[in-house]
């Protein structure tokens, strides 16, 4: 599939902002099964500084600084992305999850080295005994990885209610486990934490979902906004993405923007502004539309 993705963020301030400095994670990176054909970011007012770079995890980060007074800031990212992902994983049905765990430790390759950085706790994913206990249920010894992964994802989907506004970017896993409701970001964090608790390398992925499905296909939860899911490193296969919010493996209806240890590494827009403004209004829109094939 080829998509045209438009992600627009607008801030309106009640009084003048003298300058805004920002960091963006809104440009799709290339990952296996995804190629970004073209992309650009427009910022208004015109930023004095604007630079794109590749970050520690291989994501595309943008730095900008708007140094003229403004009361409105808009960031529009547009990109064209080809995706071809199966929406399932092909693993030997009998390969136990422990095998993947153990092989990662010994694998001398660069991919495995990078993946090992995702074994550890991160600021927003702290594996508490409660998280480990929740995960343990899905990982009895010897269970095939595919089965464990499928079951964990289904369980999160079933146990937690999707409820926008019930959590914030500061919600911890412990609070999530108590409250049993949240949004895609929380479920992704929980799945990442569960996978790490059993010794698997897992990362947080931010991206988008197809907004308008073709006739006959259901509209997925989390379209129209940026979405998030989890990814686990499987020996010999690589990163495998699962979406606990929609209880499925990530398919060609998904577009990946960036991967990190958790939300904090890849938040779509963060910034520092100088203003007396007490009320900042935020409007975000995302449109992921399939492109007509020109054949």
């Amino acid at each position, binding site marked *: 599939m080829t998509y045209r993705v438009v992600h627009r963020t607008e801030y309106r301030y009640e009084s003048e902002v003298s300058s805004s400095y920002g960091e963006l994670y809104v440009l799709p990176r290339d990952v296996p099964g995804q190629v970004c054909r073209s992309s650009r970011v427009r910022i208004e007012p015109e930023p004095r500084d604007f630079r794109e770079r590749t970050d520690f995890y291989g994501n595309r980060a943008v730095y900008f*600084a708007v140094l003229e007074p403004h009361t409105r800031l808009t960031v529009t990212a547009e990109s064209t992305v080809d995706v071809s992902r199966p929406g399932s994983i092909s693993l030997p049905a009998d390969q136990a999850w422990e095998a993947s765990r153990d092989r990662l430790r010994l694998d001398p390759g660069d991919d495995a080295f990078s993946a090992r950085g995702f074994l550890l706790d991160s600021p927003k994913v702290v594996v508490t005994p409660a998280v480990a206990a929740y995960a343990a249920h899905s990982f009895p010894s010897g269970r095939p990885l595919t089965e464990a992964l499928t079951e964990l994802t289904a369980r999160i989907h079933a146990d937690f209610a999707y409820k926008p506004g019930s959590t914030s970017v500061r919600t911890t896993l412990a609070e999530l486990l108590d409250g049993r409701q949240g949004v895609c970001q929380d479920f992704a964090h929980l799945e990442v934490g569960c996978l790490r608790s059993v010794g698997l390398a897992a990362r947080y992925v931010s991206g988008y979902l197809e907004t308008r499905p073709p006739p006959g296909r259901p509209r997925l939860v989390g379209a129209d906004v940026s979405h998030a899911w989890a990814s686990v490193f499987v020996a010999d296969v690589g990163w495998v993405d699962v979406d606990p919010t929609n209880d499925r493996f990530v398919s060609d209806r998904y577009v990946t923007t960036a991967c990190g240890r958790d939300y904090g590494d890849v938040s779509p827009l963060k910034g*520092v502004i*100088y203003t007396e403004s007490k009320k900042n209004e935020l409007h975000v829109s995302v449109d992921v539309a399939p492109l007509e094939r020109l054949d």
Partner: protein
Amino acid sequence: MSSPPDLLASYRQVRAAHDEMLTADGRIREHWAHTGRVLNDLGLDELLDRRDTASRLLDDDGVTYNVYGQDDPSSAPAPAAAPWGLDPVPLLLTSDEWAGVELGVIQRAELFNLILTDLYGPRQLLRRGVLPDELVFSHPGFLRQCDQIRVPGSQQLFTTAVDLARDGSGRCTVLADHTQAPSGAGYALENRVVVSRVFPSLYRDSQVHRLAPFFRTLRTSLQDYAPPDTDDPRIVLLSPGPWSETAFEHAYLAAHLGYPLVEGSDLTVRDGRVWLRSLGRLERVHVILRRTDAWFCDPLELRGDSRLGVPGLVEAARLGGVSILNTLGSGLLENPGLLPYLPRLSEHLLGEQLLLPSVPTWWCGDEDGRRHVLAHLDRLVIKPIARGAGPTAVFPWELSRDGRDDLRRRIEAQPAGWVGQESLDLASAPTLTPTGLEARPTVLRAFAVARHDSYTAMPGGLTRVAGSAGTSPRISNQAGAISKDTWVLASEPEKLSGFWLAAGAPVAATDPEASMSSRAAENLFWLGRYAERAEAMARLVRTAHDRRNDFQRGANPAGTECLQVLLTALTRVSSTYPGFVGAGGADRLAGPGEELFQLVVDEKRPGTLAHAVRHLLGAVQAVRDQLSTDTWMVVGTLDREIRELRDSDPHRPMVVQHTLSRIMQSLLALSGLAGESMVRDPGWRFMDAGRRIERSLQLAALLRATITVERSTATDSLLLESVLIAAESIITYRRRYRSQAQVETLLDLLVVDADNPRSLASQLDQLAVDLRLMTSLDHGSRLSEPERLVLEASTALRLADTAVLAGPPRADGSRPDLDDFLTRILELLHRTADAIDRDRFVHLLPQQSLLAPT
């Protein structure tokens, strides 16, 4: 007559540990013989006297250390500035001993440099399994944002400090490494300055290695780090501000090295470069000597809630437009979990054996390490691998059984976050106490700085001594430790090298304006204003006190009325309403003692003397790098006096009067320093402009509150006399106008006579000069807004006819012409101050973080 006790004979090692002065069998070591003899000959009383001298010298230089609440640094936003504790007895090291330590310190710096370079570069140490990933990746000091950032040259680690202790056999062992933003070198220098003055002949005879060359190396090395696109780098010292623990040192080093002391808000990033918000323009900054912890340096990419940083600083470092030293991320090396790996790393990276052993340490992220630590919880010191919330070290033997179990659980839950370390019996050194020399545990902090392709160590360092004789393993300034100078004794007279006097072409002087931040200028302006405000307030309160003493009984109606006018004038001039004017004013006029006392001592209430002094001290703190060292003598006294006054008895006005006089003396000394010891650079112009504006405001307000109404001749003659006293012009007036006091002649002297340095005319003239010279920006013949306003005020003043202004009052006694005239002058002065504030100083709006939710 008994002979004084022998100091050396009564000195005892208290424990089996190594002692610096005595050998194991109690004999004095050879290199201590001379010093020991001198100390003994001086005797205890003389030594204690010299210790007092040292304290006074430190006090005069304003040497302080900000102490926070023990456990939670954030709980005390305004810490207590504790005096810096210095034991005058130096720690002595022979050249040979030092040579060994120096080699070890330099080797360690080289090793840490290679580790740092690798971990923020190719990370071969992790890829090859020399270091476990987890040790690096789980440490909060590993800043992924700063990955692959390099500064020019091979030394990515600019400066480092190591805390050294001697074990029982006297061998030096490293207790901790400081690589984030090492502190202490400035205190070591100040200790040297003081001790060499307290023991001048002992210092001279001992041939002590000098510290100055180390600081010269620091300076030249910093230049070498400048980005390649400049020949004339601007270097600044970035400090978290006057409340930071070692704020004194930041200002001291900045002044010593000759670099501007800046805070985050003084800098800004644009075009991938860092700029100093200077007076009216931006000046490029090439090198930042960083004393702010990395996490706080950039609210965009690092800690979003930091108010100490510069958004975009990481990006600027990434682009190579600025060199930040130590580099952002260098704090990673403070991880004590690295210690067990250092011998192997030394072999691997340097091909050498590690010269200085570290205190035996086990990292719990390693299985064997964890097992060892958990099995020896009763005797190991437990530390988290990173500084953060909570204590920096736990001593399990001080914990209850439950406390220990809890610690064990925390280690097991998060093993990679902890180390266990053996607790060393620290070597002791003779330390002066009121009863003699006492053996106290010591730690030596040694310093190294990059130089060419290696490092140079400071000869000596900062020795710290436990606050008490006990065996407490804690030696920290926050826990009451004091310090010592450290003398490395040269075996032969030292050859002077690296002179301050340089050969070659004359160096172009730095443009003073370009090296001053707008914040510094603003603080200097307010320093001037608060100094004058305090002085005016002190004079007026003193005048009121005098009248009160004269007419306390109330038998003289004119005296009583004069006092009442002065009291209401006090309230009006200082805007301390209701005071003697508003609600309850009549009661306070009847018994003015308490309100008068409060107007002096209540530092929380704007307008009081104490409030002005407190803000004056705050402004001085913020620009201490700009002021001469003599300033501290004066400021320190001022601080003590205002505190004394607060604790004094309000019912003993004589005491208050006396202290007021002393405060006046300090304020006069301060203005004397400003007049005689400061270069007339733009900074001075700001300070002077502040003084001129404030003095004019105070005078005009006083005149308006006193002589715009005619009262009885008896009252007015007393009142005019008081006004002339408060305006410090009574002697001139009496000499010039021998007759009875008159409003007209008073106005001649206090308003229009430009030769009277206390007159409005002279103040406005001087202000006009200051305004013209405070910026070199060329406006052509156009006047700036403040200049226009001052011209308007001084023209009005020159055109004023004092005979008319002082002319016959209306039937109700009022003099509306005079009142209007003074009101207009006051308004123009206020507008001038506002215009300076608006045009010359940078005003940042409040900083906020944006975070768009998904």
